């Protein structure tokens, strides 16, 4: 068996996140070259593939703020053997979840009707648009998640460590300096 056939397939996506975690991922810099020796990318902002096929590892940035997020997350869960929550928003909802103490109706009302300068504001109702959930949830509350890399964003080193541990068939572990929630 040569290295080619053993390449692991990895998919990534950003749900209710800011792409910061993806940028941090790219920050593994030249190690990305080592990484592509070992993995190939499926659906990901890095490849522009739009649907996720069967994968070894799925990496999710961001929590769930709307119906679309739920669909994508489920697609990942269904197709990926290992699912990783990447970054604070995927892990605990992060910044978007700070709206959770407000009712969604109040938020929509405020944004589309009450805001200063809005004339005849209306709440978009195009069926193309995903509906927002009443609360933002971290992904483990909706599907089973195998690993978590906390941080806002997690450092490139933390991401690298988890991926290389997994590739080496080890339980990933982050020591001091690599575990961060901020």
């Amino acid at each position, binding site marked *: 068996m040569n290295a080619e056939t053993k390449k692991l397939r990895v998919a990534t996506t950003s749900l209710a996140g*800011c792409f910061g975690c993806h940028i*941090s991922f790219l920050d593994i810099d030249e190690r990305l070259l080592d990484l592509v020796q070992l993995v190939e990318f499926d659906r990901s902002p890095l490849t522009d593939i739009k649907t996720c096929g069967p994968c070894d590892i799925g990496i999710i940035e961001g929590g769930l703020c709307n119906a679309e997020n739920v669909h994508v997350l489920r697609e990942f869960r269904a197709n990926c053997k290992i699912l990783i929550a990447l970054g604070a928003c995927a892990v*605990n909802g992060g910044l978007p979840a700070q709206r959770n103490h407000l009712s969604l109706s109040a938020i929509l009302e405020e944004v589309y009707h009450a805001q200063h300068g809005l004339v005849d504001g209306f709440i978009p109702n195009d069926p193309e648009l995903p509906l927002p959930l009443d609360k933002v949830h971290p992904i483990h509350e909706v599907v089973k998640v195998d690993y978590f890399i906390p941080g806002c964003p997690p450092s490139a080193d933390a991401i690298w460590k988890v991926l290389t541990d997994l590739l080496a068939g080890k339980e990933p572990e982050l020591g001091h300096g690599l575990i961060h929630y901020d």
Partner: protein
Amino acid sequence: MNKDVTFALSSAGVGESVARGQLDRGGVAMNNKPATFTLDGKTIPFSAGQTLIQAAMAAGVYIPHLCYNPEFKPHGSCKLCTVKADGRHTSSCTHQAQDGMVVESDTKEINDERRALLQMLFVEGNHFCPSCEKSGNCQLQATAYEIGMMSPHFDHFFPDRPLDASHPDYLLDFNRCILCSLCVRASRDVDGKNVFALSGRGIKSHLIVNAKSGRLADTGFSGEDKAAHVCPVGVILKKRVGFAVPIGSRSFDEQPISATPHPGPAAATLPPHPQGACPVGPRSNAATLPPHPTVKDV
């Protein structure tokens, strides 16, 4: 570490002085032959009346804890300091040491339990570390790093806990309160003010302040109070010092909590930054990793 236990002696008016009065600087008993117990195999001397955690701290051994602060009467509520003494679970901050006791602390079983307790504290409140001024100086967070908590695991309660920004100099963000009662004890026992109290019951337990309006501004609270400087998490925060020290270079970014002398009061009194607040600051989350420093704007 020795100095950590000694300021217990100086805090007059705080209970349990009998228990602590028998300590000397080294945590060694004053009577002839020090009594000892073993902690994860290591021999720990103690003097009469000392609790397990006091003796362990005096000997430089870290036992995770949140509601314990050597300056105050132990509370025994967070249960992070749980150990097994002679095979039985107990809180090391309230359990008195006994000669010959065999104590386990840093084991997989106990750390798994501590991790679950931490996860409970995280999901019970609203902890969004990236936007918390306490991040990097927070004992809850640092203890979670220490125990290797990668996720909150449980479903979040997402409680609704409004802020109290009424006071000119201090802010109360109840979202992060872990009900350790340190502020209650400090205000009552040291400041003599009773600014803080616990109310409610069970999962509805919450912190209240001593004012008919329910607002901090209408209490006798002042920034000089002991109570202003004991919160292990980011509830009682001084205003206008935001991000004076950048995230990534704070106490527990530099050093894990297990290697930090007792962090309570010191970590809470950060000097105000001359340049003022930096709302979304530059940060380094890889301070200890020289080869690939990532400094990124969020």
